[in-house]
């Protein structure tokens, strides 16, 4: 029976990709901390991870009821779908909703989670190596 590496690594590889993406989103919030009218964003992590692990994050397809109907390729839900705006605690006068402290906290948390996912993956690989070498 061949080993299914995806199943073996579990949720951690998907989580790692999402943490990397969230790093970029949070970095963007911090870079725009002084931009007028900029609205802070964050990933809807739970729904994204659920969609990724269950494989439902596919692009929508149009139903073709005729042989000559054209197919459509869309990347909408994968692209911006799970990016949501933060509800500001205290919006500033210039329309900016970035709270640097909140973003820093989220960034630190995301970093720790990323490292945790890395550690999990490393342990999984170690287990695999033990099984392969038998030592």
């Amino acid at each position, binding site marked *: 029976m061949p080993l299914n590496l995806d199943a073996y690594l579990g949720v951690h590889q998907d989580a*790692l*990709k999402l943490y*990397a*993406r969230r*790093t*970029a*989103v*949070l*970095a*963007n919030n*911090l*870079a*725009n*901390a*002084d*931009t*007028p009218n*900029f609205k802070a*964003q964050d990933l809807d992590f739970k729904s994204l991870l659920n969609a990724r692990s269950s494989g439902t994050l596919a692009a929508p397809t149009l139903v073709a009821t005729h042989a000559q109907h054209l197919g459509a390729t869309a*990347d909408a839900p*994968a*692209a*911006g*779908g799970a*990016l949501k705006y933060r509800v500001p605690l205290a919006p500033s006068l210039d329309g900016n909703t970035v709270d*640097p402290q909140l973003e*820093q906290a989220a*960034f630190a948390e995301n*970093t720790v989670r*990323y*490292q945790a996912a*890395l550690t999990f*993956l*490393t342990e999984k*690989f*170690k287990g695999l190596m033990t099984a392969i070498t038998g030592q």
Partner: protein
Amino acid sequence: MSSFKVFDIAGSGLSAQSVRLNTVASNLANADSVTGDPATVYKARHPVFQAVHAAMRAGHNGQSAAAVRVGGIVESNAQPTVRHDPGNPLADAQGNVYAPNVNVIEEMTDMISASRAYQNDVEVMSTAKDLMLATLKLGE
């Protein structure tokens, strides 16, 4: 690879904040540059930041990579300060000189804000670097 976008984003933040620091330095350096003509007196300059949304959709698998850029530098419209100083060689016929509309306190707070934002971006960059180095070591 998506992780490298963090460096672009934080880098754009660094460059925007350094433009802001530059304008603060320029404003503070010219705070006492008086002239005898209100039309030619130095005016305080401030950068206007813009989020770069166009890049948001770049990359078909939904990697969000926006950044910040300096949309322009605007000059303050506030009136210059008129000072009666007949002894000044630059004074006009009425003995007045015109000092720039630079608000030194405002500039100092702006400088602190820019400096903090710059430090934030540096921190983001160094954390992203650590994470990427850790990822390179995955499985060791």
